[in-house]
C-alpha cells in the first residue's frame, strides 16, 4: 500500500454547494459523498413562527461533503474549498481532515490507490 490517504470533510451552508462541487471537479475530484445534516456552532440561529409559537431555531440545516484523496494534495482541496466558501461570517462552516487506513472498491476488490482510480 503506497502513499497516504486522507478524508476531507467539509461542513458548510447548503447555499454554496453547487459552486463547491464545480470547484472540486476542476481540481480533479470527481467522487464525493454528500449528506444533509443539522448542526450548530458559533452561528446564531434564526426565529421561526408557527401560528402562536415563536421558536429560536439553533440547529441549522447544513451540508456535509466527504472526499477521500490520495494523489491530490489536501492543501489544494482545503484552499479550493476556502476560496469558494469564505464569506468571513459565522456559519461558513468547518473542514476536518482525517487519516484513512485503507480503501476497498467493492465491485472489483481493488484496494488502496487503485480503488480511487478507474481504469482508463
Amino acid at each position: 500500500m503506497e502513499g497516504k490517504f486522507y478524508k476531507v470533510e467539509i461542513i458548510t451552508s447548503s447555499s454554496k454547494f453547487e459552486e463547491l462541487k464545480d470547484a472540486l471537479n476542476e481540481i480533479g475530484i470527481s467522487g464525493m459523498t454528500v449528506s444533509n445534516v443539522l448542526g450548530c456552532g458559533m452561528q446564531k440561529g434564526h426565529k421561526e413562527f408557527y401560528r402562536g409559537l415563536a421558536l429560536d431555531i439553533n440547529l441549522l440545516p447544513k451540508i456535509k461533503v466527504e472526499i477521500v484523496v490520495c494523489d491530490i494534495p489536501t492543501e489544494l482541496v482545503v484552499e479550493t474549498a476556502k476560496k469558494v466558501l469564505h464569506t468571513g461570517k459565522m456559519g461558513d462552516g468547518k473542514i476536518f481532515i482525517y487519516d484513512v487506513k485503507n480503501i476497498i472498491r467493492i465491485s472489483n476488490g481493488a484496494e488502496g490507490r487503485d480503488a480511487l482510480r478507474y481504469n482508463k
Partner: protein
Amino acid sequence: MNAVNAADTSFIIFATALVMLMTPGLALFYGGMVRRKNVLSITIHSYAAMAIVSIQWVLIGYTLCFGKDFAGFIGDFQFLGSQGVGFLPNANYAATIPQSLFMLFQLMFAIITPAIISGAIAERMKFFAFSVFILLWSIIVYDPIAHWVWGYGGWLKNLGVLDFAGGYVVEISSGISALVAALVLGRRKKLKTITPHNIPMTMLGAGILWFGWFGFNAGSALAINGVALNAFITTNSSAAAGIIAWSICEIASRRKVTSLGIASGMVAGLVAITPGAGFVSPLASILIGGIGGMLSFFGVTVVKQKLGYDDSLDAFGCHGIGGIWGGIATGIFASKAINSAGTNGLIYGNIKLVGIQLIAIVATVAYSAVMTFIILKIMGKFMSLRVTSEEEMEGLDVSLHGEEAYGGTSV
C-alpha cells in the same frame, strides 16, 4: 307540493360529496401540523369519525336530530335505523329533495364535527379512547344541539336563532368541546419545541377544506336558488378576507407572512361566515371574515400562549372563537333582503336578533363544555385517555398503530 326537483337534487348530491371530502382534507390539514411520528395517528382520527359516525347516523343519529320533536330538546325514534327515510321529501326540512339525500347531506356535517376535536388532543390521546369518545359525543352533544338549532320544534330554532350552515351545530360545539378535551388531557411533553412536520400537506388540506366548504355553505340552501349562490359568494369572500386579516396581523407583529398563517386565516374566515352565509350580504361577509381572522389570530397567539392550554392544532382557536364571532356577526348583519326566510339583524334596526344569537351561543357553549367534561371524566374511570409517557415519546404511529408514515430505511 312535496315534489322532488331534479336540479335541486343533483346539486345537493354534489354538495354532499363536497362536504364528505372535507374530512380527508381536515386529516391532511391536521396531519401536516403534527410531528412525523404522529401523522398517522391524527389522520386516523378523521377516518375513524367517517366510519363511526356514519354507522351511528343511520342507526340513531339522524332520528335524534331530525325525528319528531320531543320537548324542544331532541328528536324521537321516528326514523330509527333510517326507517321511513326514502325518496319522498320531508317538507319540514327540504321540500324539493329526497329525505334520504337530506339525511346523507347532514351525515357529512355530523362526521366532520367530532373530527375537528381531534386537533385539540393530537399527539397524546389513546386511539381507543378517542373512538369511544366520538361515538358518545355524537349522541350526547352533537345530536341534541343539531336538533335544538335545526330540528323542527327545536327550542333554539323556535326562539329564532339563525345558523345557516352549522356555526353553532358544527363550529362552536366542536371548538368548545376541543378546548375542554385539551384541558382534561393536559399538555404534551416538550411543548415548546414541537413544530409542524409537513406544511405543504397542511396547505393542501386547507385548500380541500375551502373547496369542500362551498358544498357545506351553498349546499345548506338545500336548493339551487339565490340564497345558495349568495352563500357561495359570501363563503369565498370571507375566506379571502380571513387570509388578508391574519396576514396583516402577522406583518404588524413579526413582519413576515407565513403559509401556516394563510391556512389558518382562511379557516377562520370560513368558520366565521358559516352561520351567516345565507343571511348576510357579500359586503358584510368581507367584514365577518376579516374580523374572524383577527380574532382567531389573537386567540392562538396571545390568549393560548398566556393561558398555556395545549389546544394542539387550534381547534378552539379557529373553530370555537371563529364560530362564536360568526354567531354574533349573523345577529348584526343578517338581512331579509338577502334571505326572506331569515330575520333582519342589528344594522337593519333589529337588536333582538343579537340577543337571540347570544342566548344560543351561551346555551351551545355551556352544554358542549359540560357534557364533554362529563363524558371524558366518566370514560376516564374505565380506561386511560392518554398514552403513557414512553408511548408519547416514541410517537403514536408506532406505539398505538404499529406503522410508520415514512417508513424506516426501505427504499
